[in-house]
């Protein structure tokens, strides 16, 4: 077991950014020297594939496999593009921000190496508009990297030259969907595109494009510097590396921790977050953003990774957990999620545009004491008709994951809302009940 924390061990606890000189002093931009020593793009692809790096944005798709679809060789269409997906808008998720604010050069280096591996000479960092501090620090890092010749000039021992631009966006969750993101970058309304063709062959301006989550890109230089075996030893599971996990909600110490991939939720909750806050009980958690399914007590010892979840538990998502406690109404919790999804639907396809506001309206009826048994069946129906295969992209199916699992694990709470004609957690309805 390797106890290093390659992504965060050098970060300043006070949040001060590490700029060029400091980054280089701890081995930063070391991966570029491997190129001078004769490492060719195929070598980088092979290392990343064998390391078992899986996408950290929530999908967990193997990065090596994703890269294998990009056309290579002298006949490949040029230019090719690398895009960092820094549109971190999944509620409860703040891991990419920690990296970009603290170590902006790590993203620059990760993108250069991904670009080299795929012979893609232009990169964009697609950053959510609200991350002003990240934008400022990334701009500074990009300027420093140009001045130093890491960007805009042939890399040592090669003819490869990489250019990198920062694109600050202007809101809207759907931009995190990779094809909507490409439309946004092209200056079009950010609705998703039909797949196929996949961006790896037909992406930005019709050219081969890889869209990769920020945390994923931060891993690449470390794989190149330290090798596949070292990378596997960081992890407790068959996929390599560490993961930035986080917790928000009513726990003693909400926060983030870089830990071996495959750490359990119980360990993170008890050991790192200090357990539930005083007098507060645990009911469930969403393991990685709000497009994941609830996990309850019996799931807390599952390794949080991309291959250990049984199908009925869903998926890890972003690894930043949100805790549902016993002082919070599960119906109100899910209503908050569905209002978010309804607001953020791009409106392109009908099931999502119409279905999500309907779901939010139904849940509001539960909270306000107007719901009937039929409404419960209507909620069940939506989880089927907004499931994968019925919508244009993954937004609505993602929205159904917490709803469906809440209906499974907290069904008696939905029923209590119908029975008492209101929310058992609401102070207002408690007072009304006393009066009655």
């Amino acid at each position, binding site marked *: 077991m390797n106890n290093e924390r390659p992504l965060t061990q050098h970060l300043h606890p006070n949040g001060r950014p590490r700029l060029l000189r400091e980054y280089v002093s701890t081995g930063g931009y070391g991966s570029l020297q491997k190129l001078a020593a004769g490492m060719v793009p195929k070598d980088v692809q092979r290392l990343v594939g064998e390391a078992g790096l899986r996408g950290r944005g929530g999908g967990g798709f193997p990065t090596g496999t994703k890269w294998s679809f990009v056309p290579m060789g002298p006949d490949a269409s040029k230019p090719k593009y690398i895009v960092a997906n820094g549109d*971190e*808008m*999944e*509620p*409860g*998720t*703040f891991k*990419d*921000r920690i990296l970009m604010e603290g170590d902006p050069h790590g993203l620059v280096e990760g993108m250069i190496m991904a670009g080299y591996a795929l012979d893609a000479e232009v990169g*964009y960092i697609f950053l*959510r*508009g*609200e*991350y*002003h*501090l990240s934008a400022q620090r990334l701009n500074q890092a990009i300027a420093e990297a140009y001045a130093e010749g890491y960007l805009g000039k042939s890399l040592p021992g090669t003819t490869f030259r990489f250019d990198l*631009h920062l*694109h*600050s*966006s*202007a*809101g*809207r*969750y759907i931009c995190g969907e990779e094809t909507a993101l490409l439309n*946004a*970058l*092209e*200056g*079009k*309304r*950010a609705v998703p595109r039909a797949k196929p063709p996949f961006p790896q062959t037909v992406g930005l*301006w019709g050219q081969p494009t890889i869209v990769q989550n920020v945390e994923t890109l931060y891993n690449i230089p470390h794989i190149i510097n330290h090798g596949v075996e070292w990378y596997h030893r960081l992890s407790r599971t068959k996929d390599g590396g560490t993961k930035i996990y*986080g*917790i*928000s*909600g*009513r726990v003693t110490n*909400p*926060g*983030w921790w870089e830990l071996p991939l495959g750490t359990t939720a119980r360990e993170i909750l008890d050991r790192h977050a200090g357990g539930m806050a005083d007098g507060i009980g645990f009911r469930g958690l969403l393991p990685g953003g*709000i497009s994941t399914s609830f996990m309850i007590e019996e799931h807390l010892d599952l390794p949080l990774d991309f291959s250990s979840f049984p199908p009925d538990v869903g998926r890890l998502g972003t690894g*930043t957990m*949100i*805790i549902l*406690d016993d002082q*919070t109404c599960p119906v109100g*919790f899910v209503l*908050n*999620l569905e209002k*978010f999804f309804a*607001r*953020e639907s*791009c409106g392109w396809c009908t099931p999502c545009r119409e279905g999500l506001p309907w779901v939010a309206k139904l849940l509001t009826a539960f909270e306000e004491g107007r719901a009937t048994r039929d409404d419960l069946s209507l909620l069940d129906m939506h989880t089927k008709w907004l499931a994968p295969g019925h919508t244009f992209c993954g937004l609505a199916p993602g929205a159904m994951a917490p709803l469906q699992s809440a209906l499974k694990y907290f069904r008696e709470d939905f029923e209590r809302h119908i029975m008492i004609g209101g929310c058992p957690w609401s102070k207002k309805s408690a007072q009304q009940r006393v009066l009655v």
Partner: protein
Amino acid sequence: MLTEIERRELEDAVKHYPEKRGAAIDALLTVQRHRGWISDESLLDIARFLEITAEDLDSIATFYNLVFRKPVGRHVAFVCDSISCWIKGCEQVQEQIKNLYDIDLGQTTSDGRLTVLPIACLGHCERAPAMMIDQDVYGQVTPEKMEIIMEKYK
């Protein structure tokens, strides 16, 4: 008409894209930074520069919540209303803004000082509830803290 400064900034932005319209968001945000919001006239100025129609540009401008197609106050407070902040009491934060300034979400104070808007998860969930004023993010906001924070935004 774009000002000289605006034009120069837009010309810098388009250099990053193979097509001018790639800079649509950069252009909208740049002009908004100078003029506070995107009026119909601003929209036309930008569309002309990008060589696309105003209608086309408006379909982008109206899509994004950080592009203001209506005037806003001198300062804009964005109150995060996503789940981690909801659990930790973002509704009390909204309530306090209403108490202090007599405005609901989406409204501007009569003296033009402040607009308050809801916003999707600000990514500061470990310090919930969070809010952003202009470009500054505040965590663990309480009704009492809010009054002190707002002193900076006159």
